[in-house]
């Protein structure tokens, strides 16, 4: 396998890791609005992701950095082309990032309510925008011969991409609720499970709708029909198992299955793209590929050595941190946030 393909997989893995990990803390952020009834419950939810959310977000930063290093044209076209949505994304991530730390520093109700709103919006908008962007990637975008993306608003925001955005958002919400069942106890845990099960019905409808639209509105099934069909079947199985395990109160398994749906969903975007990284809707010859968007062979080789040396350590200590904080968050205990 050539280095270009390895780096394509690596970028994909970083995004998949980001959606799996930050996906649940986005979901927990949404749950502070929909699930928590009291201030105490909101604090329990925030504390349940407290030690992790920042490191989870680094997966996104690393994905961006890897893209920049390995596929400068992909990074340049995507980030300049999606200028406006990315500004909104950044504003949301900024607000969310400080809100966890700032919220507990004040004591008035107004202060807390304001930051609760920031946490909610900051957790709701990013998965939606990512959904819109990723749906746009497989649908194709007006990229010209100079690799410049001259997209109007409706190239970026249309029925297909909005359905993609809502689907990703709801998926993260369910994933976050399943995470909550793992990190909390008692009433909150039970309500989280019940709410997750209730959300499965609309989520199933959205996933099916998005799948059908993808079949008719994109070329990914023509390009990778067999693999994608297989992944879709696996996705359906994993999805059914979320409900099955949740009913049996096997929360760990249910969380793994919601994670599996995310992993399969995001992977299928990259499978559908390959060997392209951005599809031109003007002329397929203008599409960016793992070849024409990539850095030189030397750079890729160095980066491969660095990445494969460091990633095992990163994974090791991140997993260790989840192990250290495996105990459930209990409102009777001291809460940092």
């Amino acid at each position, binding site marked *: 396998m050539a280095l270009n393909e390895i780096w394509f997989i690596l970028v994909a893995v970083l995004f998949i890791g980001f959606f799996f990990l930050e996906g649940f803390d986005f979901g927990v952020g949404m749950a502070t609005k929909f699930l928590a009834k009291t201030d105490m419950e909101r604090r329990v939810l925030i504390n349940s992701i407290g030690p992790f959310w920042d490191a989870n977000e*680094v997966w996104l930063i690393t994905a961006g950095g890897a893209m920049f290093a390995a596929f400068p044209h992909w990074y340049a076209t995507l980030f300049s082309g999606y200028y*406006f949505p990315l500004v909104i994304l950044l504003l949301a991530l900024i607000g969310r990032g400080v809100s966890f730390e700032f919220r507990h520093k004040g004591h008035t109700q107004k202060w807390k309510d304001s930051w609760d709103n920031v946490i909610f919006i900051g957790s709701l908008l990013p998965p939606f925008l990512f959904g819109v962007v990723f749906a746009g990637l497989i649908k194709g975008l007006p990229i010209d011969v100079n690799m410049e993306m001259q997209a109007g608003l409706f190239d970026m925001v249309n029925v297909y991409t909005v359905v993609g955005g809502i689907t990703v958002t709801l998926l993260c919400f369910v994933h976050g609720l399943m995470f909550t069942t793992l990190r909390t106890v008692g009433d909150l845990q039970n309500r989280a499970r019940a709410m997750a099960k209730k959300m499965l019905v609309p989520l199933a409808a959205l996933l099916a709708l998005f799948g059908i639209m993808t079949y008719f509105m994109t070329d990914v099934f023509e390009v990778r029909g067999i693999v994608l069909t297989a992944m879709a079947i696996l996705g359906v199985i994993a999805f059914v198992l979320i409900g099955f395990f949740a009913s049996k109160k096997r929360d760990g398994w249910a969380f793994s299955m919601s994670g599996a749906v995310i992993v399969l969903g995001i992977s299928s975007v990259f499978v559908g793209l390959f060997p392209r990284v951005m599809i031109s809707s003007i002329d397929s010859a203008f599409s960016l590929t793992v070849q024409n968007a990539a850095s030189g062979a030397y750079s890729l080789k160095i980066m491969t050595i*660095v990445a494969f040396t460091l990633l095992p350590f990163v994974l090791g200590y991140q997993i260790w941190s989840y192990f250290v904080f495996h105990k459930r968050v209990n409102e009777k205990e001291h809460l940092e946030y």
Partner: protein
Amino acid sequence: MLDMEMLSRIQFASTTIFHFFFVPITIGLAFFIAILETMYVVKGEERYKDMAKFWGKLFLINFAVGVVTGIIQEFQFGMNWSNYSRFVGDVFGAPLAVEALLAFFLESTFIGLWIFGWERLSKKVHLLCIWLVSFGTTMSAFWILVANSFMQRPVGYQMVNGRAEMNDFFALITNGQVLVEFPHTVFGALATGAFLVAGISAWKLIRKQDVPFFATSFKYATTIGLITSLLVALYGHAQAQYLVGTQPMKMAASEGLWNQSEDPAPWTVFAMIDPETKTNTMEVKIPYLLSFLSYSKFEGSLKGMNELQAEYEQLYGPGDYIPPVSTTFWSFRIMVLGGTAMILLAMYGVYLTARKKLEKGNTIFMKLMVAAISLPFISNTAGWIMTEIGRQPWTVFGLMTTKDSISPSVTGGEVLFSLISFTVIYTILGILQVKLFVKEIKKGPYPKLEAEAHTHDPFDKEDVTNGS
């Protein structure tokens, strides 16, 4: 029609300057807290733990803002400078990716372990966490400065199809530029943290609050402040000498030197610069000093901007290769002045501590120390303005100009929107951080139970009884 390039430059400058208010605090405080917690583990005295926790609270407020303003930094290369990203992604993207892999994961994971791990980890493992955070923040500085040093002095690359492609990674990370720029910047960051702690401690000492606690903090802070600000000056000097050889135009601009200097060259303390006529008036000069600063001996002349302009036209074709001279000239002087004041203040602080005169409260000096919190920020900012403005018109010296670096698909209107949004949110963040800092400082390391009791939130009382 809005000028997309100018707006993008303003946005990059303001977001970077703002981001770099928080970065040095992060680097400086992480190191300071690590020292305090080491004292706690070695000596076993609770007061060091209390200090680590108290300064840790300020660290965390600051860390949050530093992280979120950092995300913009990574994104806006692609968003506003896509041509630049295409051109140098090969060389410039690599250190950024390494920074994320090596530094950001380390910082973010171990800071989580540090905050939430006081009760769950053993003393030594907990101490290791803060040292790893400190190491991570410093490594982050190294890798981003590797990237910046490439812009100052491109090395380890070859041109392939009009793009700069990396061909020597080792050359990139041992770039002579980064070997002087990295220590200069990191010692500056450590000094920033030290002056922040010293200033806040002085503020508390003036008010006679928790005197032993803040006297000890002050002692550590001024000692670290003195050592690091001396090292900043030393590496600043090394960097200036390096500049003479690699970016003589920036050097000439920062000296307001239009024509070849005399030999030996005098150092200009003050001058009114007129870029129109390319002359200076009201110059105040110290003989021999510029020769000494540039070559460590009392002879040798420096090229002026006019000679260099002619040379660069030969090399790079017609164009204006002279950066904004007054900005470069004055930002350099402001930086040096701030740095010198820091050295003197830290010296006197160490002297006072050694003579055990701290508790008496030398109020004029203590008030100066409170005001001196601003000094490292002024110097850091002025230093970066000099470095980046002085490199103009280039983004990558000799390879790519700023006007060629922009994103062709982004409009001026879009950049205006983002510039306004970021400015508004940054202003709010800045005000909030200062307010929360003041609040934590007023509360002090040992908040009284009754002071908290009249708040309306019962859970915060619980925080206090649990020793938060």
